[in-house]
Each structure stands twice: as structure tokens, then as C-alpha cells.
């Protein structure tokens, strides 16, 4: 947003050198805008994988899904879904805490979120080990591992971001002002995106 004061008057722009100031509309800060644009690109990436998945299910249309004799562990994945979704609540708790100046709550929320995310990833890897089929078993195996693996990679990236945020929190970084906790806010938005994508992946792949 462009601004001027009456003291500068109409000559303000004549004295300005260099490129014009960025016109920042809607006052969304650059970091948040950056993560939102990144998420938009990620949605497109997931969209490509979902397009492949639904192509296989609807256009190829096998008699059963998953194709016999494969079965998906719906209940275990359901528990894993609950674990991941609960981590959205803990990261939100962490941010609400630091907004109120509660550093203890921030640390607790971040550690819990990290642990829940790591548990999710551990259970997913354990699920891969015990599934009984691999990415080479039919197009079904390929798309299953591609979709869930793509999401798992995002969880891993999210855990890395949370690790940085947690270390910084324990080192005394972050404050209650909005500009002072962007290092938690941005990973928080990313983490919520990862959770939402898993809800969609779980519902589409395991349930429908």
C-alpha cells in the first residue's frame, strides 16, 4: 500500500530514486503470501496425482477397489489420521500460547506437534512394511505409494520445519507480537495444509 504524508506533499515522488515501492495490497505480509503461493503450487502437484488416481479408478474401472487380493488397513490408517489431525490442534495451541506471551505453552505445543507428526510418519512406514504389496504391483500399487509417499514426504518436510521452530523456541526466540512469531506461523500454516491433504488422501484412497 502506497502512503504519503502531507509534509511530503506532491513532491514526494519527484524526490524518490530507485524502483517504486511495492504496492502491498490487503496487508498480507510477504512471508505469509509466500507460503500461500507455495501451497497453491502444492495443491496443483497433489491435483496431478489425484487425477491419476481417479483416472485409474473411474476410467480403467477395475471390478473391485483395491484390486483383489490387496487390502488396505483402514482402521490403522484411521487412527493415524486422528493422530495427524490432533497435531493441528497442538500447533494451533502453540501459536495461541505465544500470542498470549505463554512461552511454556509454545514449547509444549511445538514438541507435541513434532511427536505426533513423527508418530504418524513412523506408523505409515510401518504400514508400508506390512502392506504385502509394493509400488511395482499393478497401477494400484504405484498410485497408492505415489500418493501416500508424496504426502509422507510433505510430513517429513513439515517435521524439519517444526524442528527448526522448536529449537528456536527453546533458545528463547519468538514473541507475542505477530512479526515476532512468523517462524512458527509459517510452519503452522504449512502443517495445516499437510493435515488437510491427508484428510483428502485418506478419504479418497482408504474409504471411498
Amino acid at each position, binding site marked *: *500500500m*502506497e*502512503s*504519503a*504524508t*502531507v509534509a511530503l*506533499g*506532491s513532491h*514526494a*515522488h519527484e524526490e524518490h530514486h530507485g524502483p517504486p515501492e511495492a*504496492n502491498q*495490497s*490487503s*496487508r*498480507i505480509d510477504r512471508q*505469509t503470501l509466500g507460503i*500461500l503461493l507455495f501451497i497453491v503450487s502444492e495443491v496443483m502437484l497433489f491435483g496431478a496425482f489425484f487425477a491419476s488416481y481417479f483416472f485409474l479408478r473411474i476410467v480403467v474401472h477395475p471390478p473391485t477397489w483395491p484390486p483383489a487380493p490387496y487390502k488396505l488397513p483402514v482402521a490403522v490408517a*484411521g487412527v493415524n489420521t486422528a493422530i495427524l*489431525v490432533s497435531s*493441528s490442534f497442538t*500447533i*494451533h495451541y502453540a*501459536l495461541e500460547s505465544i500470542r498470549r506471551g505463554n512461552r511454556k505453552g509454545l514449547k509444549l505445543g511445538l514438541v507435541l506437534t513434532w511427536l505426533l507428526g513423527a508418530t504418524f510418519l513412523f506408523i505409515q512406514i510401518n504400514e508400508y512394511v506390512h502392506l504385502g504389496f509394493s509400488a511395482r504391483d499393478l497401477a494400484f500399487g504405484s498410485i497408492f505409494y505415489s500418493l501416500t509417499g508424496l504426502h509422507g514426504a510433505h510430513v517429513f518436510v513439515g517435521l524439519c520445519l517444526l524442528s527448526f521452530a522448536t529449537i528456536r523456541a527453546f533458545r528463547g526466540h519468538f514473541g507475542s507480537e505477530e512479526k515476532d512469531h512468523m517462524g*512458527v*506461523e509459517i510452519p*503452522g*500454516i504449512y502443517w*495445516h*495444509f499437510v*493435515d*488437510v491433504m491427508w*484428510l*483428502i488422501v*485418506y*478419504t479418497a484412497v482408504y*474409504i*471411498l
Partner: protein
Amino acid sequence: MHNPLRSEADAFRWVVIIGVGAVSVIALTLLTQPVVGVVWAAALVGFGVGIAYRGSRGSLPRSVAVTQGGDGKHRLLVVANETVGGAALLDEIRERCRDRDCRILVVTPALVSSRASHWASDTDEATELARQRMELSLIAIEGLGLKAKGEVGDSDPNVAIEDALRVFPADEIVISTHPPQRSRWLEHGVVGRAREQIDLPISHVVVDLAADRAIP
């Protein structure tokens, strides 16, 4: 355009909404057949897209966050575009700031000619014209013996007000428009929407520039 995702708190709200929707799809699928779940999921996605679209256009009821000043100064947010130099608006500003230590922020929305221009970010000319009007308005307010700052705002006046309130702890707002028969802002319900969304006193000033020019 209202961005429905500005912070982690907004993202968390979406997680909860999508989570509830996903649970309903899962429950319906497990209780009936997958095709019922697919239909319900499609309906929810359509509903969600509609809500997001309405939210982005500012059609949904919402409240705007207001920052607090608390330093004893009276802060007046003036939102006007073509009517910034109107006599009625200047009278209103003078009246509001009488016997007060007044701080004024004038916001002139950069009105683009079309929605296509907005989406294509073809707003340079609109921004420049708004900046010129803003500077003229600052000079006019200086003529009253008052100090003011100015900003070029979003093309949507309600978004421009919301943006300004994030950094300017206004005590009251003055919105200036053309008379009803010529005002696009009134046609789009800018004043009414601002009164619904913002918990601050809001004055609406009608500036008739043609009548102002007719006065010698």
C-alpha cells in the same frame, strides 16, 4: 477481494471445517455405500467452493479486527475516492476534529476499471490516479490546519478500510460517497457492510461535487 487465508488461525479454521466434512463423508460411506460418500463429498466440495467464493467477495457476515490506540489522541479514518476534496467532507472532518488532538488517515481506494484488470494486476494507472487524489486531499485537509497521512488502498473500499484498521487504531470512520443516484459504493452497499463489520462509529458523508462547483 477478501483473502480467506491470512494467518495460521484462518488455516486452522479450515482444517476444522474440512475435518468435520471428511468425518461426515467417512461415516456416510461406512454406513451406506461408497457412491453415497462420493456424492456427499462432491456436494460438500461444491458448497465449500461457494462459501469461499462468497467470502472472497466480502458477501459473508464477518467482523473486522480493530486495533486500539489508547494514547489520548483522536484518530479519524477517512475513506474517499473522487469525493476527497468535497466541501461536505472537509466540513465533517473539521467538525470531528474540533478541540481535539486529531490524527487523520485518508485512504483512497485504487479503483480499477474492471474485475479483469484487478485479476491481471493491471492497477498501475488506478494506483497513480488514487495517489494523486490522495495528495490533493491531504493538501485540502492541511488547509483546515490539520495534519493528515494518506494511503492508497485496495480497490474494494471495504478491504481498504480493513487494511487500514490493521495499522491505524481509528476511533471513528468517515466514508465519503457521491449522492445515491451516482454512487457505485452505495450501490454495492459499502457503507452498510462497513457498519455491519466494524465496531466503530461510522459517518457517511454525501459529497455532491457538481453542486460544490456551482457555488461561486
